[in-house]
C-alpha cells in the first residue's frame, strides 16, 4: 500500500454521516452531516463531494478506512456495505478502524497529557459500550479495555470523571459530554495511517462491523 497516496475514510457509527479524503494533517477534505437516519441517503453524495473537491478519483486512493464499530447497528452496516462496494469496484484495500480508538485519538489531541477519560455509548436501552483511556502525548492508551456494561453500572464506574458518549445523555453532570460520541472521519483516516498498517485487508469478504456482541436470533413467542 502506497501511503503517500490519500486515503478515503467513512464514519457512520452514530448520528454523524462523515467522509474525509486525507492526504496529511495539513491537507484533507471532509464532509459531515449531523442528522439522524440519513446515512443511506446521503453517504454517496458525501463521498462524491469530497472526491470531487479533492480533484482526485477513487483510483488515486491507497485504501478506504471504515469506522468499524462498535456503534449503531444500522449505521455500521450502511458504512461497511458502501465501503465494500467501492473497494471492490476500485480494487482498493480496506482498513477497518476501531471506532473507540479513533474517537480516543481525537479526544486525546485536545486533552492534557495524563488525563484519564471514559467513552460510553449506548448499545441499546439497557447496555453500554464502555472503555477507559489515558492521554499519552497526543495519543492514548487503554486504561480499561472495551466491553459492554449494564447502564446501572455506569455511574459507579465513572463517578463524575470526564466521560464522552451517548450514554451520558440522561445525566446532569458537567463532566459528561454526550455530544462527543463518534469520531470525525479525519481521525478515522489519521488512525488508519498511524496504526492501521497491520489491519489492511485485500480480502474482505468476511469483514463485518464489530458489535462486540452476538445478536442472538430468537423465534417469536406465541401469545
Amino acid at each position, binding site marked *: 500500500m502506497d501511503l503517500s497516496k490519500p486515503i478515503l475514510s467513512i464514519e457512520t457509527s452514530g448520528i454523524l454521516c462523515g467522509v474525509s479524503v486525507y492526504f496529511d494533517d495539513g491537507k484533507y477534505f471532509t464532509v459531515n452531516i449531523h442528522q439522524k437516519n440519513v446515512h443511506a441517503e446521503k453517504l454517496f453524495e458525501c463521498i462524491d463531494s469530497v472526491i470531487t473537491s479533492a480533484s482526485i478519483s477513487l483510483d488515486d486512493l491507497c485504501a478506504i478506512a471504515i469506522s468499524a464499530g462498535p456503534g449503531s447497528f444500522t449505521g455500521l452496516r450502511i458504512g461497511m456495505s458502501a465501503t465494500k462496494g467501492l473497494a471492490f469496484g476500485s480494487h482498493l484495500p480496506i482498513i477497518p478502524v476501531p471506532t473507540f480508538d479513533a474517537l480516543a485519538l481525537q479526544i486525546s489531541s485536545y486533552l492534557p497529557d495524563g488525563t484519564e477519560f471514559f467513552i460510553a455509548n449506548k448499545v441499546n436501552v439497557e447496555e453500554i459500550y464502555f472503555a477507559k483511556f489515558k492521554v499519552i502525548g497526543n495519543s492514548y492508551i487503554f486504561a480499561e479495555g472495551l466491553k459492554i456494561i449494564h447502564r446501572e453500572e455506569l455511574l459507579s464506574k465513572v463517578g463524575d470523571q470526564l466521560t464522552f458518549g451517548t450514554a451520558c445523555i440522561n445525566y446532569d453532570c458537567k463532566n459528561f459530554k454526550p455530544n462527543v460520541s463518534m469520531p470525525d472521519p479525519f481521525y478515522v483516516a489519521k488512525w488508519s495511517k498511524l496504526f492501521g498498517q497491520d489491519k489492511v485487508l485485500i480480502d474482505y469478504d468476511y469483514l463485518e462491523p464489530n458489535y462486540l456482541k452476538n445478536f442472538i436470533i430468537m423465534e*417469536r413467542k406465541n401469545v
Partner: protein
Amino acid sequence: MLLPFAKIIRSEEETIKIAGNFARLLKPGDVVILTGNLGSGKTFFVRYAVKQFGIDSVSSPTFAIVNEYDGSMKIYHFDFYRIKNSAELFDIGFNDYLNDSEAVSFIEWGEMFPEMLPGTRYEVDIILYENLSRAIAIKKNKPIKIAIRK
C-alpha cells in the same frame, strides 16, 4: 393518572380519555408495550395517545412494521405481529430506534419478543370481552436492580 391503573370501559370516549391521560405521563425515551388480542383496540389507543403530541394521522403499522410521526414529540409506532424472529427487528434497526432518547416508542404485540424490550417500560394491556366492553390495565415495569460488579 396514577399507576398501576385498571378500569372496565364501555365506550370509545372512555378509551380516548384514558389514552390522553396516559400520554401526559410520557417523556422522551419512554417505551410503551401494548398487548391484547386482534381487534382489542391497541392501535386505537395509540392513535388517541399521540394526539396529545399533535399527531392526527396514525395508521396501523402491521404491514410497515414501524411508522414514524413528528409532532411535539417524535413517535415510533411498531407492530411485532408479522415478525417471525428477532433478526427481522435487528434488520430494521430496532435498537437504534429505541436508542433515540428524543422519541417515545409504542410497540404493539411487544410480548412476542420480550428479550428485545427494555426492562423499564410501560405496559398497556387491553382485554376485549364478548359484550364488547374492555378492560384496560396500565403499569410501569422497572428492572430488578442488578448487583454492581467490582
